[in-house]
């Protein structure tokens, strides 16, 4: 199949079959470069069995989507490289993938089941581990599980993390079978990035840049690839910047790897991204005033009339939302066939009340946000804000179309995209929503070139009865219930991502958070609730209070040190697996657009007395009595959401392949059923094993844009965010009915509820004007340790590079003028102190950072006595982040990741 695009050469859509082709591909790369011939292939494949290359999948970051080839000689892994045929990384492999061999052979791994004998728990307290048998360990855990499940299954709290999330994909099924709602993503509070995309486009996890057809990107507080430095996303970014001529604007407090390659780096004062976005939207609404009017009128709810109560004004008889038809001055139902020209502006009297279109209300709300106002807050010059807004509108090519595979789309090759740096602040939800408004004003939403959801492809934009795209996932909102069921306070933070920080506070102070049941056990899989959110103190207290902690552990990290029983988990090289490819969090282009595949690993080892986490769960479910029968683990696997391409949780089983509820299956038997379902019986697990991965025919490019499935006037994106208001009003009603303030916000409940308004507005960050804490501390991912995956914190190779080669990756960044003012010199040790804690490190003076910032790179610190001591630079940034609920975004639950600090010489 071939697609022609209006802007580029023919794009070939391929069918991929991995492994054997990949092995041949190793030599065929050589063939291309050196002119050597295929005898090399045969020489290679005729080697004795003890020297072989086997397919692998890297787990070195949360994306975990790079195909590997692993060189095994006499049972020892002696090398690894990217699989040239794998569609994401195409032969490349980042440093983490290479260094991961040392994770496999880390002598400090958890090598056998262990039992704590020292009842005292804490950082630096030796648990005095004693080795036990698997039987003993599993029985200990199963007995606890049985008792908790009989009493109140909510008493089991699970923490999961990126360390294992991709391979350990029976977790959610297992917890549902157990019956607890407390399945907590530990990575959540600094990754609370899902709300607006789930609301506006029904896209979970987020929205990304379209590097296939996009031409101009404003990227604010996010990595589009280079800062994350995984192979696939970086290759696509390099192609976009260097081959396709993408104009890339990076707004960030520091000039990192990505900004250094951007067309332009625009430094911004941290925590003020929302003000920049409001200022840019103001310029578009009050100065430029060139919109994609067709899109706003027919493809959003911007023209819906809003009543005095802040909700849609509805027809008296139909109950349908009304739109003012400018052609005849009549208010009509949104789907009235006589509707000719939906009014975006104006004030009207309808049914005896004053009403305005949503667009007018938002425009009125943004009147105060002039670029001069935004300059005062962000330090970005007003002229720069104006210039960017003008460039953005001009580059949007409003009115242009593009035909892909015979289907004509609007073509809007621009987008504004944001992520953690913009959203993990109080006000971050409004900032993310404002990016959506900006994109929608030029029609750049889910069309070629524009802002792309990276969730499900298909008819996800189908409207609800009001004609609008309905919210999805976290945007729906957890119903209010009092007292709450969820230990992570989902009932009080109905739209939040995940709440390990909230769960810890509730466990420590159940009265304040109205937690009415006892947490009896904590289950950990690949997670680090101590290091990932903010300071560890409250979590530590919670772990000391809960009577039993069991951990499917690979390394002796802090969660292991705080556990009672360790069930040793395999390293990823040792794990057999079957996974579907997730769409990239960073960017997408024609090489990965519409690629659906299943991939596997040929495991090596296991080298120690370890097991696959999925196997451990099946075993525990059987011993604790929830594997079989209706509602058991088998049944939960049967009931998986059959949505194709749904993210990373594995895939569903077709009707023919449902599990017998009363039979115990091996993982391979379950995977085989998944493969047969995924490929409609065309392939089996054995086929995937043989090839390493098998992909479906790549979707034609037109099917990679969700506009295609629900085109034209068939749906409307929310532009006026009435659903946010609705969730907030329900929360208010729930609190009032129970006569309680919002827990954690006892004196600030009104402030918390002010984040649920349908029109984004500026919210001053905590401590914004503090003169004592006069600086902002910022933190970012470095290539060595982007997230707590695969034991990178224990890896001597990653730290050898991070500590010795690039001084910007292991020292604290400080602007020379700020340093001069404070009497700090290059190489000085400084203390960075927030209201929550202190961090010490060495200063590197650099022009690459906003003068009000101290920049602290990477994810280090809180090393335990039983971990490999691979660095002396164990500074722990998250210690600085506030544990005060009122510092967080009450909608997405994000922590304030750029806390105010003071700095002084150590």
């Amino acid at each position, binding site marked *: 199949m071939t697609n022609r695009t209006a802007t580029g050469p023919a794009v070939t859509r391929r069918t991929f079959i991995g492994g054997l082709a990949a092995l041949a591909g190793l*030599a065929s790369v050589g063939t291309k*470069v050196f002119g050597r011939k295929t005898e090399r292939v045969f020489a290679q494949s005729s080697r004795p069995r003890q020297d072989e290359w086997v397919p692998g999948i890297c787990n070195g970051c949360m994306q975990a989507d790079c195909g590997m080839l692993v060189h095994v000689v006499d049972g020892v892994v002696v090398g690894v490289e*990217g699989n040239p045929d794998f569609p994401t990384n195409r032969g490349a492999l980042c440093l983490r993938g290479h260094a991961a061999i040392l994770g496999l052979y880390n002598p400090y791994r958890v090598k056998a089941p262990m039992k704590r004998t020292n009842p005292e728990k804490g950082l630096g307290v030796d648990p005095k581990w004693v080795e036990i048998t698997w039987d003993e360990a599993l029985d200990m855990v199963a007995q606890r599980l049985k008792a908790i499940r009989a009493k109140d299954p909510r008493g089991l709290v699970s923490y999961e993390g990126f360390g294992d999330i991709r391979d350990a994909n029976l977790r959610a099924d297992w917890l549902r079978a157990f019956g607890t709602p407390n399945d907590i993503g530990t990575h959540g509070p600094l990754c609370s990035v899902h709300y607006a995309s789930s609301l506006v486009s029904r896209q979970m996890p987020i929205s990304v840049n379209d590097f296939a057809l996009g031409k101009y990107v404003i990227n604010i507080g996010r990595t589009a690839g280079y800062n994350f430095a995984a192979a696939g996303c970086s*290759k696509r970014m390099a192609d976009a910047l260097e081959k396709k001529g993408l104009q890339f604007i990076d707004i960030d407090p520091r000039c990192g790897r990505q900004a250094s390659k951007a067309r332009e780096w625009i430094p911004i004062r941290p925590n003020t991204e929302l003000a920049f976005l409001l200022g840019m939207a103001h310029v578009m609404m009050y100065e430029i005033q060139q919109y994609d009017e067709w899109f706003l009128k027919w493809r959003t709810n911007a023209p819906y009339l809003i009543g005095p109560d802040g909700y849609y004004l509805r027809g008296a008889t139909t109950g349908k939302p009304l739109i003012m038809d400018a052609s005849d001055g009549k208010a009509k139902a949104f789907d009235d066939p006589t509707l000719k020209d939906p009014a975006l502006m104006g004030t009207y009297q309808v049914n005896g009340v004053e009403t305005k279109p949503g667009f007018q209300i938002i425009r009125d709300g943004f009147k105060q946000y002039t670029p001069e106002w935004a300059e005062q807050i962000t330090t970005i010059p007003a002229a720069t804000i104006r210039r960017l807004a003008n460039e953005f509108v001009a580059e949007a090519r409003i009115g242009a179309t593009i035909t892909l595979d015979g289907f004509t789309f609007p073509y809007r090759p621009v987008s504004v995209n944001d992520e953690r740096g913009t959203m993990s602040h109080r006000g971050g939800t409004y900032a993310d929503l404002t990016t959506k408004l900006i994109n929608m004003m030029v029609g750049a939403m889910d069309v070629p070139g524009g802002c792309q959801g990276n969730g499900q492809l298909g008819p996800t934009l189908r409207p609800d009865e009001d004609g609008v795209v309905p919210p999805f996932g976290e945007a729906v909102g957890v119903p209010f219930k009092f007292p709450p069921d969820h230990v992570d306070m989902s009932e009080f933070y109905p739209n939040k991502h995940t709440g390990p920080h909230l769960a810890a506070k509730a466990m420590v102070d159940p009265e304040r958070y109205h937690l009415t049941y006892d947490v009896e056990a904590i289950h950990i899989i690949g997670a680090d609730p101590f290091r990932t959110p903010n300071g560890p103190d409250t979590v530590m207290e919670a772990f000391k209070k809960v009577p039993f902690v069991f951990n499917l552990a690979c390394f002796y990290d802090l969660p292991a040190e705080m556990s009672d029983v360790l069930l040793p988990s395999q390293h990823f090289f040792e794990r057999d697996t079957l996974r579907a490819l997730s769409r990239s969090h960073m960017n997408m282009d024609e090489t990965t657009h519409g690629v659906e595949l299943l991939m596997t690993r040929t495991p090596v080892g296991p080298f120690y007395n370890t097991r696959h986490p999925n196997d451990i769960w099946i075993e525990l479910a059987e011993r604790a009595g929830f594997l079989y029968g209706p509602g058991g683990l088998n049944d939960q696997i049967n009931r998986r959401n059959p949505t194709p391409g749904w993210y990373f949780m594995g895939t569903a089983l077709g009707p023919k392949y449902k599990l017998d509820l009363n039979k115990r299956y091996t993982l391979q038997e379950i995977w085989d059923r998944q493969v047969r379902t995924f490929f409609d019986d065309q392939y089996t697990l054995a086929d995937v094993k043989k090839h390493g991965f098998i992909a479906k025919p790549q979707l034609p490019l037109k099917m990679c844009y969700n506009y295609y499935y629900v085109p034209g006037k068939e749906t409307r994106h929310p532009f006026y965010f009435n659903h946010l208001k609705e969730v907030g009003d329900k929360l208010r009603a729930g609190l009032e009915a129970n006569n309680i303030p919002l827990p954690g916000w006892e004196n600030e409940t009104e402030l918390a509820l002010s984040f649920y308004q349908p029109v984004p507005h500026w919210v001053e960050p905590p401590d914004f004007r503090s003169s004592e804490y006069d600086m902002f501390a910022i933190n970012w991912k470095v290539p060595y340790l982007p997230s707590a995956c695969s034991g990178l914190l224990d890896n001597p190779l990653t730290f050898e*590079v991070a500590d010795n080669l690039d001084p910007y990756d292991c020292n604290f960044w400080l602007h020379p003028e700020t340093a001069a003012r404070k009497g700090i010199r290059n190489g000085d040790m400084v203390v960075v102190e927030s209201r929550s804690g202190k961090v010490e490190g060495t200063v590197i003076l650099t022009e690459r950072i906003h003068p009000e910032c101290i920049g602290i790179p990477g994810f280090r610190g809180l090393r335990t006595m039983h971990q490999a001591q*691979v660095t002396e630079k164990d500074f722990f940034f998250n210690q600085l982040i506030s544990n005060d609920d009122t510092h967080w975004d009450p909608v997405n639950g994000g922590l304030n990741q750029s806390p105010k600090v003071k700095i002084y010489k150590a």
Partner: protein
Amino acid sequence: MRYGLLIDLKKCIGCNACTVACKVAHAAPPGVFLSKVLVEENGSYPHPKVTYLPTLCMHCEDAPCVAICPTAATKKREDGIVTVDPDACIGCRSCMAACPYGARTFLDEDPKPYFPGAAHTPFEEAVQARYGYRKGIVVKCDLCVDRVDEGKEPACVQSCITGARVFGDLDDPQSQVAQRIAMGDATQLAPERGTKPSVYYVGA
């Protein structure tokens, strides 16, 4: 035939995938980088310029290290790759003095284990045995001769996550690397030293 490398500095983001790929491919001892990326900052706020400069052995056409080696431990292969035979190296370090690029490292001790306080891992044992690391010899980038002999690219080239490196035969005008160099904007490091490096850079 002369193997060489072209590195596009516009694409290099200093992620050190190459550094670690090289390190793993050779199980280079702790503290030893056979290739690495240097970083340099110029300009002033808000327009700083960051340059990442990947470095490795330049596999010079007129390699002074080959000429000066008293035991012929350092040799140049017919395909242009400069290698060191660890068994023949006497650790006199004259090659280090002769190399304008600081591409060589003297091992002043036998390789320590990667993990402090532990033994060498099976990975280190297996791979280091191939390279004969020992106290008193000089080591350097061998352009992954083992891989090249198998028809593969060097590890730093294949691993590169932005595709910043092109490897090939500089003498073959049809090769991608030669064609790119023929465009005229490629530079070498310290060309005035007259060593004729086989590593070229563009995009500086």
